[in-house]
């Protein structure tokens, strides 16, 4: 599992951790049942605060990606990738609904919204 943190990024540290661990799980780099480093171990390795790490793990738990067992630590959950993908699609849908509603309140026609999305999509493509 690789985690690279950027101090220069606008994305908060816990968000960077969530995104990268999620990525590792979704592309099968770490597999169901596999243990994750303990919260304190990860905090030490990344030289970040324990609370930040804890928050990242809580987020991943909420998404159903990992399970935490008291006294044993955290593991990649057994949920199948299909389920995980569906979960994320639901999240995406929620965000898209927000965007649609916001554009409506700005009286922005659909074409313009789509053009915006296309522009952003292409802009971000380079960053991976």
């Amino acid at each position: 599992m690789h985690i690279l943190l950027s101090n220069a990024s606008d994305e908060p540290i816990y968000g960077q951790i969530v995104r990268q661990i999620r990525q590792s799980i979704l592309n099968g780099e770490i597999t169901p049942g596999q243990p994750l480093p303990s919260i304190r171990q990860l905090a030490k390795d990344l030289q970040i605060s324990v609370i930040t790490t804890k928050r990242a793990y809580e987020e991943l738990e909420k998404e159903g990606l990992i399970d935490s067992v008291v006294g044993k630590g955290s593991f990649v959950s057994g949920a199948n990738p299909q389920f995980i993908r569906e979960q994320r699609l639901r999240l995406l849908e929620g965000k898209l609904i927000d965007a649609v509603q916001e554009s409506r309140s700005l009286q922005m026609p659909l074409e313009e919204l789509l053009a915006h999305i296309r522009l952003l999509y292409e802009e971000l493509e380079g960053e991976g």
Partner: protein
Amino acid sequence: MNENAVVEISRLSKKYKRFELKDVTMDVKQGFITGLIGANGAGKSTLIKLLMGMSLPSGGEVRVFGQAYASHEAEIKERIGYVADDCSYYEHLTVDAMRSIYAPFYKRWDDRQFARYIDRFELSPKAKIRSLSKGMKMKLSLAFALSHRAELLVMDEPTAGLDPVFRRELLDILSELMLDERKSILFSTHITTDLDRVADYIAFLNRGELVFNESKERVFERYALVKADKELLDADVRRVFVGIRETSTGFEGLTGDRREAERLFAGYARIERPTLEDIMFFTAKGAEAHV
């Protein structure tokens, strides 16, 4: 005692002729790192001295491990590892001679642990303390503080005047200690970069008053730095800010209510995540403006 707090400070005050620490209530949570920040003269050292039982409060109370200094001073001090902001050892002694004086004060002194740290810090037991550089003295101080199985490490400005390499090393040591969830750390600093990364809680003192003591996550959720045109600054808008810096090209302001700022400025301003330094700077500036 509050089950998660190793230090409980309530309504603490200390009056000096030219400075006053006013009514500070806060705690230090077990298993976490608390960073005490504030400008020079904000009261950080005063607070730490009170917390170490090295000076008596004018009002209020300090309890460490649930106990008061008046009744349990020796017990409390046994369990604290303390790193002062100046070198408080006998300069004419060697490192090892100092150890033989220091060690008997602690029931749980661990010679092997001390030897390990001395080795790791590349200090020679035979070196005269006088001959050590500032960074080396700091390391020696840390070796003493960490060699009697202390549960709470208290450090007053451990990085002041030290180079970035050593600051990174210190960061390593601190995050290593935090592997043990029974340990707690409190350190003060006026330089917030790199150390702010490992801190779980931030306690911020400004002019003798505690501005907040919150998890760092919460602090960064709440505060925002707004950059926009000066035309947007009317009396109502000003009220949202803790402090404002105006220049010929626009203004920068710190707000403690990110949501409100996002609502007010939607689309008309850049809203950024402040650094701890921004928070310190604008709070001090705001306080000046209200005097």
